[in-house]
């Protein structure tokens, strides 16, 4: 009891003595024990491998022989001698720039529809969320391949209205866009977050605006969007990171090749090929760290931009 009522400086003095340290360990031991699985997981499975890969990115390593330190050669090669690095970066950036805004816009539109106080909302919410749970799975990617194949469902529907569709996934002009559509289809998770955000906006805000004569469009632009901006920002950051990391759909739909003609060669797919196709672990590690830096830059830009468009009501 007396220990618990000590002032902070007094407690700090006590902590210095070894017997007190032991007492503290005894007192908090159970807590650390409960923390242990997470601590082990974090140090052994996340931080450890991450630091190891940072080291490996400066080596030549084929998994079988000892890593050989080669300085910054991997990074130099990336920017000077590797056209596939540039190609995959281009594909990924295009994918991010297309899929993220489209997905967010679609998610917001659905959230606004669902927010109109309809009956059975929980059911619709669950149904619309379902693709997000399934979306990144192999099964859906396979399904997508069937849908957009030259004799797939999409083309047979188009044929009904007299349009002869191309083979979407084997045509380099369209293949990336089928993946963008797949990504937009997985709008559930940002939609749920938008819906929660929309419900936070007091209805009297809209009532005041409608008495002020504001049209629905003006209410959306001047009230909904500004008040939702923290949620938009959150979704933007999360979805951008997700889009940079996208891998499964491209892997399945292109059969792991990133084809046709590298049109779906996502950065992560290229990284995977280098690591597990050619066993160039050092080079793949360097690719991974470049991706980390690029994501960090995008995230930092997003954060820096908040003061111009995100409204915080604190």
């Amino acid at each position, binding site marked *: 009891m007396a220990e618990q009522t000590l002032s902070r400086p007094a407690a700090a003095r006590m902590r210095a003595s070894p017997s007190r340290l032991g007492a503290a360990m005894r007192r908090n031991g159970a807590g650390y024990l409960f923390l242990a699985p997470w601590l082990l997981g974090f140090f052994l499975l996340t931080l450890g491998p991450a630091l190891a890969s940072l080291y490996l990115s400066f080596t030549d390593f084929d998994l079988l022989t000892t890593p050989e330190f080669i300085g910054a050669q991997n990074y130099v090669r990336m920017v000077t001698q590797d056209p596939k690095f540039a190609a995959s970066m281009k594909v990924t950036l295009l994918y991010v720039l297309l899929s993220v805004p489209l997905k967010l816009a679609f998610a917001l539109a659905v959230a606004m529809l669902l927010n109109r106080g309809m009956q059975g909302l929980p059911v619709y919410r669950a149904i619309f969320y379902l693709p997000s749970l399934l979306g990144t799975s192999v099964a859906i990617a396979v399904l997508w391949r069937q849908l957009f194949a030259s004799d797939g469902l999409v083309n047979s529907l188009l044929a009904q209205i007299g349009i002869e569709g191309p083979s979407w996934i084997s045509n380099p002009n369209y293949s990336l866009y089928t993946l963008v559509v797949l990504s937009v289809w997985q709008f559930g998770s940002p939609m749920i977050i938008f819906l929660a955000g929309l419900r936070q906006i007091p209805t009297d805000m809209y009532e005041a605006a409608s008495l002020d*004569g504001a049209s629905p469009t003006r209410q959306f632009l*001047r009230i909904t969007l500004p008040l939702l901006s923290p949620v938009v920002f959150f979704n933007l950051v999360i979805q951008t990171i997700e889009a940079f990391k996208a891998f499964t759909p491209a892997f399945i739909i292109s059969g792991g090749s990133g084809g046709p003609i590298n049109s779906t060669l996502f950065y992560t797919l290229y990284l995977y090929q280098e690591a597990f196709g050619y066993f160039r672990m050092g080079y793949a590690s360097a690719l991974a760290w470049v991706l980390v830096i690029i994501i960090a830059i995008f995230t930092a830009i997003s954060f820096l931009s908040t003061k111009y468009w995100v*409204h915080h009501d604190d």
Partner: protein
Amino acid sequence: MATRIELKRVEKRYGAFDVIRGIDLEIKPGAFTVFVGPSGCGKSTLLRMIAGLETISDGDLLIDDERMNDVAAAKRGIAMVFQSYALYPHMSVYKNLAFGLETAGYPRAEVDRRVRAAAETLQITDYLQRKPRALSGGQRQRVAIGRSIVRDPRIFLFDEPLSNLDAELRVQMRVEISKMHERLGNTMIYVTHDQVEAMTMADQIVVLRGGKVMQVGSPLELYNAPANEFVAGFIGSPKMNFMPVKTEGDGVMLAGQRLQVGHALTAAPGTPLTLGIRPEHISVGGEGASLGDGRVELVEHLGGSTVLHVRPAGDRNALAVVLPGQQPCRTGDTVPMRVDPAKCHLFNPDGSALRH
């Protein structure tokens, strides 16, 4: 010329649930009308129906003799002050005030002129660049009122605008709103559950209960001649005392004593009625008809007046008695209660008042 509002058999239903049940009401041009009643009586719903924020299930809403049921809220020439103020949190005070004018397409110079004039009137000029979150409750309230003034509406509606303010500020804002009404002369409707607000501000009070109008009248009409037991109990503080009585000739029997009331009673002897007496109309000793002796159970010294809770002899409810000034009464004292018969109210078993 101020605006006249008329409601004809107005009803509001949510599914099978009737919220407003056939209200007929005329609001005179330039009047300050207060809708008052307990929570759930439909006063806010009625206000929102006039504003155009709720649809009207049945009946007609006329503003200056024009049917407004299907006219959009923005086109009714109405401004409303919300209980929550409903200020746009992401806009500065200036932008909040300007939003409606900009929406209506006023030129920038005119918007600026009106915003600054309203800010000047409400003494919020210094805060124009602040966001609402940087304002106190009272300042937010002023901004909300300012937002209604700038648009120069025909009608002002207030939905419990002072309920989020502390007592002192509430009194101050009450005075300011009354002054604003005097200055502008517009038709104003004010919703509150606080009968003191209603009494102090209104030209005309509409007492509502269960979606029906209980009585319409000036504050003193409601106080002096309540149409029914509900209004009698709702208006006035402390509440009117009610006692069950039976008629006896041209008086009533109360606890074995015959009380001569100022009513011409035509009911058969022995008819049960309810006698209502305001606490401030009971005196201790002195002139008037006797209400019998009672034992003081509690004394509340308010300085300017003294409130006694007195239990009369027999098994009757305690009566509240308000005496002027500071009285030397103590708990346990026995006091003789008197009342001026002309100030007694009598109510039928259905609650309606017997008229003098």
